[in-house]
């Protein structure tokens, strides 16, 4: 007898059943019940079919949300019916719900491979030194590094940098866009950096807080970009006077996840220009954002600034999503759904961080060779510390200054060399923060396996900077200024 209209009954693939019970509700003949036994493979309870009353209506198969949970039974003699269900011991290569990036193997392409177009250094005519305020000097440094795209949101005391860019960039084929917020600004940078172009923003502490999410994404996607953070008093709204209380954020807290970025700390208008230039170089060398940590005084302070001998015409990196045939296969993103891939990516980032830590430590040391007292300070407080060193030397105390220029990586190699040479020196950390620079020093000493020397603190906060006389007095008296215990 020919089988014409025999509808196949359902068959259960227990390893695909999640026990959602939709088929139980769907069955008009009450053939399906909830089971009691856990499936050893899946850890859930699959349904049980009792097919005595089954008329093969297949409503249960339609109700099943799983592609292979309930499938039509194979009729005798047939090799396959309905969906081609894989068995539990299927070849992983056959599983359709696999991560698409692994599904087809490496993509082949006939497109030309992108190549790195290196930047060009062009000679800059010698000019008289300029008298510039810090934010302007930083903007000029960025322009000389080839930055033509700036995004920002007004915030005192950093806005003038952006204002200068708004004036200058249209003449240089670039643009400044005032974003609706710092969140928008950092994401505009993400887009611009993804295209492989140098870009930056000017902001200050509260705005920097808002940018952290975007910075984490940029680090994850390995994008270069320069964030100028002209630090002001906090927490919260705080005030617009200089402080250094974002050091922790910049060195240890750049958004979520495993993040680090080089943090450059200028202390003169000249350095505002030099480090701003350097920041772009480092950002592209390591494909990572670079943070410039200035403070309110440095942003507003004017000083003599000499221009460098060259300016840079930026090239185009091979990884850029430039939007032409050669760059067609490039991918910029920070998502890695596979846990093993993401772990590998983090290992790659850690290697990069280790490489940076080895190669990019920078510090200025002054009169440290015979020092009994080592002042450690950066940004504007380093200027007061320098004055204090002179006063202390006059008073017969052999003082020296260690000024970290990179706050991350902390210049521990320099510190180690000095402490090896001057093992009895005591350290005085001078800062406009509740000990965040000191924390960096202590952490770096600890990681380097160095026993911490005696550390004294001179700390001011809220926009008040440590004064020269105050530092001298503290060193002479051997007493801390405003160092409350237990904040580390």
């Amino acid at each position, binding site marked *: 007898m020919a089988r014409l209209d025999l509808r196949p009954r359902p068959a259960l693939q227990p390893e695909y059943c999640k026990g959602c019970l939709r088929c139980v509700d769907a069955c008009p003949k009450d053939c399906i019940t909830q089971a009691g036994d856990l499936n050893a493979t899946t850890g859930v309870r699959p349904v049980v079919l009792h097919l005595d009353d089954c008329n093969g209506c297949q409503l249960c198969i339609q109700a099943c949300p799983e592609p292979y949970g309930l499938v039509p039974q194979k009729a005798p003699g047939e090799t396959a019916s309905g969906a081609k269900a894989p068995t539990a011991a299927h070849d992983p290569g056959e599983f359709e719900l696999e991560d698409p990036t692994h599904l087809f193997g490496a993509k082949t392409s006939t497109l030309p491979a992108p190549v790195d177009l290196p930047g060009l250094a062009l000679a800059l005519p010698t000019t008289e030194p300029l008298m510039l305020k810090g934010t302007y000097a930083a903007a000029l440094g960025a322009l000389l590094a080839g930055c033509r795209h700036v995004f*920002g*949101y*007004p*915030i*005192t005391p950093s*806005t003038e940098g*952006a*204002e200068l860019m*708004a*004036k200058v960039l*249209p003449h240089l084929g670039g643009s*400044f866009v*005032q974003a*609706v*917020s*710092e969140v928008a600004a950092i994401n505009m940078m993400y887009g611009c950096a993804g295209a492989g172009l140098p870009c930056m923003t000017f902001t200050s502490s*509260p705005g920097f807080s808002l940018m952290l999410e975007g910075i984490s994404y940029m680090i994850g996607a390995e994008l270069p970009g320069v964030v100028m953070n002209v630090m002001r008093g906090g927490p*919260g*709204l705080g005030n617009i006077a200089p402080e250094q209380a974002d050091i922790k954020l910049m060195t240890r807290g750049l958004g979520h996840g495993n993040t680090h970025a080089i943090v450059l700390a200028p202390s003169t208008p000249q350095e505002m220009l030099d480090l701003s230039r350097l920041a772009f170089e480092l950002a592209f060398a390591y494909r990572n954002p670079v943070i410039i940590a200035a403070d309110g005084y440095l942003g507003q302070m004017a000083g003599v600034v000499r221009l460098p001998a060259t300016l840079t015409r930026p090239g185009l990196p091979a990884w850029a999503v430039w939007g032409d045939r050669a760059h067609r296969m490039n991918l910029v993103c920070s998502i890695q759904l596979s846990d093993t891939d993401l772990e590998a990516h983090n290992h790659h980032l850690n290697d990069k961080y280790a490489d940076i830590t080895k190669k990019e430590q920078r510090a200025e040391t002054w009169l440290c060779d015979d020092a009994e007292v080592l002042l450690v300070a950066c940004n504007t407080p380093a200027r007061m510390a320098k004055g204090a060193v002179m006063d202390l030397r006059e008073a017969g105390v052999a003082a020296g200054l260690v000024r970290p220029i990179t706050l991350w990586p902390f210049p521990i190699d320099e510190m180690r060399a000095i402490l090896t040479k001057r093992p009895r020196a005591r350290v005085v950390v001078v800062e406009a923060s509740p000990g965040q620079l000191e924390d960096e020093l202590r952490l770096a000493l600890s990681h380097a396996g160095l026993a911490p020397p005696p550390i004294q603190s001179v700390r001011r906060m809220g926009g008040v900077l440590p004064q020269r006389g105050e530092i001298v007095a503290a060193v002479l008296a051997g007493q801390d200024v405003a160092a409350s215990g237990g904040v580390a």
Partner: protein
Amino acid sequence: MTTVALGPKDFKSELKPIWCPGCGDFGVLQALYRALSGIGRAPHEIAFVSGIGCSSRIPGYTTAYGFNTVHGRALPIAQGIKLARPELLVLVAGGDGDGFSIGGGHVAHAVRRNFDLTYLVMDNQIYGLTKGQLSPTSPHGLETATSPYGSLEDPVNPLAYVLSYGAGFVAQGTPADMPGLAKIVEEAIRYPGFAFVNIQSPCVTYGQEVQQMKVHKATMKTLASVGHDQTDRIAAMRLAQDYGKALYTGVFYRNPEPPPTFEALVRERQTAQGERPAREKILDRYLQRAT
């Protein structure tokens, strides 16, 4: 709720405003004192929240409980206050940058949730506190510190924006007509639901010539004088299109049948849940399966 006879002076704090001499916000403050004395709620029953900007200093100049909050986040904070203390009169103030640039995303959601809040935006088309940058309501072509060759962007239309999200009360005023503004603000506060007043408040230091008090006085036109029906939302929308071109003052739209507010619905739901179950019962509900 206490209702007592209070004069405008009862809402004036001892803090002296540090706005530039001639700032439009002085007039707004006076109008607010008058409006609040008209309402008659005691200062301690008022929570006045603002964002960041020149105009956001305003809570400090009143005797109400004030909170100078985060840039752009005044509305979410006000909603938190209103949920915690629905019986308080909650006012929100800020500038155009605070409300329509960095805080722009919050406005739509505050409107559609319909908390009983009064949102006063002092719109001067410029960032004054940071010394003259582009604002979201700056007209196309405006030269500012961050748009030295003229802005390339079209401005936000606050009236049309808030209207289109379905706010029940939308009005506009100017300190050039302080008594009129006081009346508008009082009506806004009395509206049971989200009420928005766009106040064209001139910036004397960085604002445009055409946005100064004298010009306002000469060009302002009351909506009553053009025969506008306050309950006609479409007509309001049509008039709102003239934002930046004509200065209409008065109520653009007032919902004649105000829908229940968010906090009222929350209370209703709490009541509908009946008697509060004992803590053990709640724990049982979630723990039974696990044991």
